[in-house]
């Protein structure tokens, strides 16, 4: 039985139809949960939508929330393309904030120098931090899932230590545990007046084509994909799997770290002791939903941004817990992970829906 949508080329099916169907089904599953709590799903979803979109400020806030998801999603996706499951985006996020904020409060330079310098510092920090996990894998065979999870804790505790210890990063002029405020020149400018939407959104929009270019049009990206698809063949062709692994983890970490510093320079302007933001873990879902395609990261990140942003309004309006969005996210991932369900629902022929790649599958099974 052929349906009208089987006329679409494979990439449309894989990148648009299947994720869209997964999202719709995800909302459907969550609706059952809402009904189970005695509330009305249509009311809840209406409030969720209102909270995320229905006025300039709400929409701006949705975009604000989506900014870290873009960088983190790109980072995790790039890891997937190299066959690596970077589950440490959360930790690299903090390392990025830490190393970037240090530059941003210590130096007094014009904005055009200070902002790029802070971001570069953050990227360098994230590169080294995640690259270390890559090194452990390349040199000792330590699985990156284990090492990056462990390094998450290291980064939280490191951040707390640095931020609360006098003589280190603690602001000497206050009793609250926090770093000094960043130099005003380091703050990312607001791009929509009366909102919190800052220039980090523009950076995110630039990062997407750059990462696409890196993966698809450079020799580095080619090495990374070759190793991700088939390390044996890459190695036999003279590509160093070890170097590529370190590099891919490093770049992945640098992107995750950018999320951290952009959040700090754009919103907080200071760093306080780390509490798990959850961003790093949601980012895995963003990358999965986008099928590790850089372009698709944007809509995926915006969806997560909207859920994140609309959830509190939904709770306020309808008393449906904002934790409900976790159910939406989780069921979306289940449907992405089980393409057979979508294939069956849409009556697509075998082969039209690409199976989830090995590392992504690994990601799904271990999340």
């Amino acid at each position, binding site marked *: 039985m052929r349906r009208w949508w089987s006329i679409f080329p494979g990439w449309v099916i894989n990148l648009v139809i299947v994720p869209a169907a997964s999202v719709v089904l995800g909302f459907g599953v969550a609706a059952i949960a809402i009904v189970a709590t005695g509330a009305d799903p249509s009311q809840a979803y209406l409030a969720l939508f209102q909270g995320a979109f229905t006025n300039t400020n709400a929409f701006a806030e949705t975009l604000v929330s989506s900014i870290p998801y873009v960088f983190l999603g790109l980072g995790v996706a790039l890891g997937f393309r190299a066959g690596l499951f970077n589950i440490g985006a959360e930790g690299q996020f903090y390392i990025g904030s830490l190393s970037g904020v240090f530059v941003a409060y210590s130096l007094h330079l014009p904005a055009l120098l200070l902002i790029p310098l802070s971001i570069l510092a953050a990227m360098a920090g994230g590169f080294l931090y995640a690259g270390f996990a890559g090194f452990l894998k390349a040199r000792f065979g330590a699985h990156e899932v284990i090492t990056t999870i462990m390094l998450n804790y290291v980064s939280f505790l490191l951040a707390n230590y640095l931020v609360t210890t006098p003589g280190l990063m603690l602001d000497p002029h206050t009793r609250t545990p926090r770093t000094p405020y960043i130099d005003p020149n380091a703050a990312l400018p607001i791009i929509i007046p009366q909102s919190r939407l800052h220039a980090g959104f523009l950076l995110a929009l630039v990062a997407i084509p750059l990462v696409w270019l890196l993966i698809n*049009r450079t*020799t580095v990206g080619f090495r990374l*994909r*070759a190793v991700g698809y088939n390390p044996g*063949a890459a*190695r*036999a062709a*003279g590509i160093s799997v070890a170097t590529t692994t370190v590099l891919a983890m490093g770049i992945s970490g640098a992107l995750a770290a950018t999320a951290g510093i952009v959040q700090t320079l754009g919103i907080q302007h200071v760093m306080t002791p780390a509490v798990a933001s959850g961003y790093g873990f949601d980012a895995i879902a963003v990358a999965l939903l986008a099928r590790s395609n850089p372009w698709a990261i944007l809509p995926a990140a915006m969806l997560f941004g909207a859920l994140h942003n609309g959830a509190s309004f939904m709770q306020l309006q309808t008393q449906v817990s904002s934790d409900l969005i976790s159910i939406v996210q989780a069921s979306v991932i289940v449907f992405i992970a089980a393409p057979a369900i979508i294939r069956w629902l849409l009556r697509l*022929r*075998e082969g039209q829906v690409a199976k989830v790649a090995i590392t992504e599958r690994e990601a799904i099974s271990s999340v």
Partner: protein
Amino acid sequence: MTAALELRGIVKTFGELRANDGVDLAVEWGRVHALLGENGAGKSTLMNVVYGLTTPDSGEIVFDGRPVVIHGPQDAIRLGIGMVHQHFMLIPPLTVAENIILGQEITSPPGVIDLETAGRQVSELSQRYGLEVPPRARIESLSVGVQQRVEILKALYRGARLLILDEPTAVLTPQEIKGLFEIIRNLVAEGNAVIFITHKLGEVMEVADAITVMRRGKVVDHTTPQQSTPADLARMMVGRPVLLRVEKKPAHPGDVRLEVKGLVVHDDRKQVAVDGVDLDVRSGEIVGIAGVEGNGQNELVEAISGLRPAVSGQVLIGGRDVTRRSAKSRLHSGLSVIPPDRHRQGVILELPIADNLVLEDFDQPPFARWILRNLRAVFDYAAALIKQFDIRAAGPAEPTGSLSGGNQQKVVVARELGTNPEVLVAAQPTRGVDVGSIEFIHRQIVDQRDKGLAVLLVSSELDEVLSLSDRVAVVYRGRVVAILEGEEIDRDRIGLLMAGGAAA
């Protein structure tokens, strides 16, 4: 006499591909029925239908006179159908007896495996059919030939009366093949039936009572070894007359291009796999390595390629010592390698043909400037190679995974020969490749030899080694036990040497 198995009009499609297109087959009790065809002809699909691994779109299966529906291997086993896959389904750390009873354990008291009885039953079965196995030995300690016997016993233990053997000789020595054929004879003498899947003509002529030839999902003909010659069978398989022998002129060897001196290499378990090998390959000659798989050939190839460190000894390419050089540097100094395992090492199925053709040179000009790839140069180069090496594909952008095995292998061959190397190490260059592509790949290798290429050929297909090589080195347990030339190259003699017999 009732037929053991009758298939009527079996159709199985995968998308656009008609893997089985109305196949009829009748196998009789007490007979060896060979199912002959190239890779992709539909043999395996047909047998998967019989064994319940896939369901046909239409068609009838009649087993021992009764129409049956087979939903899964459990159904097949219950009926008395057994299958020995090309890749064994054994658990290496468990013993022979444990593997055989796995899934059908005898327990006494309930819940406790009665290995005593199991061992006795296994011994009885093995004596009855002349299938000698040590019931208490661990699988991992046994040779491939013995492991295969365990697989056969496993099927018999489950009550198989119709036994399907999928390419059973691929991993055996000539002597082990003789042993297998004896076992097959014993089995059918007791009234069982055997379906023997193969693409090797010689074996069909030797062991089969009846032959069914398949091509592109259809049965081309039913025949017997008495009615058809090997040349007839080859023509039926391929659809056109085939040269069974490689035509080549006498070699004119020049300078030594590849030299291996006292090479010692470890395998993954740190055991000596290559044990002091000396070899040299001259320009304009093909040196074949004959040996049963797993006697150090892969480690030797990897050590020459730079993928595995040499514990001691040297590798020289064009007179330069490259023992400590990386794989990349060797590939860029005149060495080309066709790796033994196409899917693990040869090509990246997900990438386009073009990317696979430049897998070793993607970061060199003109394919890249600084870190930016020049895709136009890559695609132009790929288009030229696709034409030159007759790769049947829609174009350079087609994913390599959608090509047939033969065309995938041509991609590897094109990449390796396209750089005009000094030395070619060709490991299993035609494994899993159709007859047409085998012919083409052999032709390319011989032509390049005539132009001065030094070729080291490693193959577990003895026929391939015999027909291409100017000299043959026989390896056994990591050592070169003999190097034969000209008249000395004799099938039986090599077979004995491969099995560890002393040089006659």
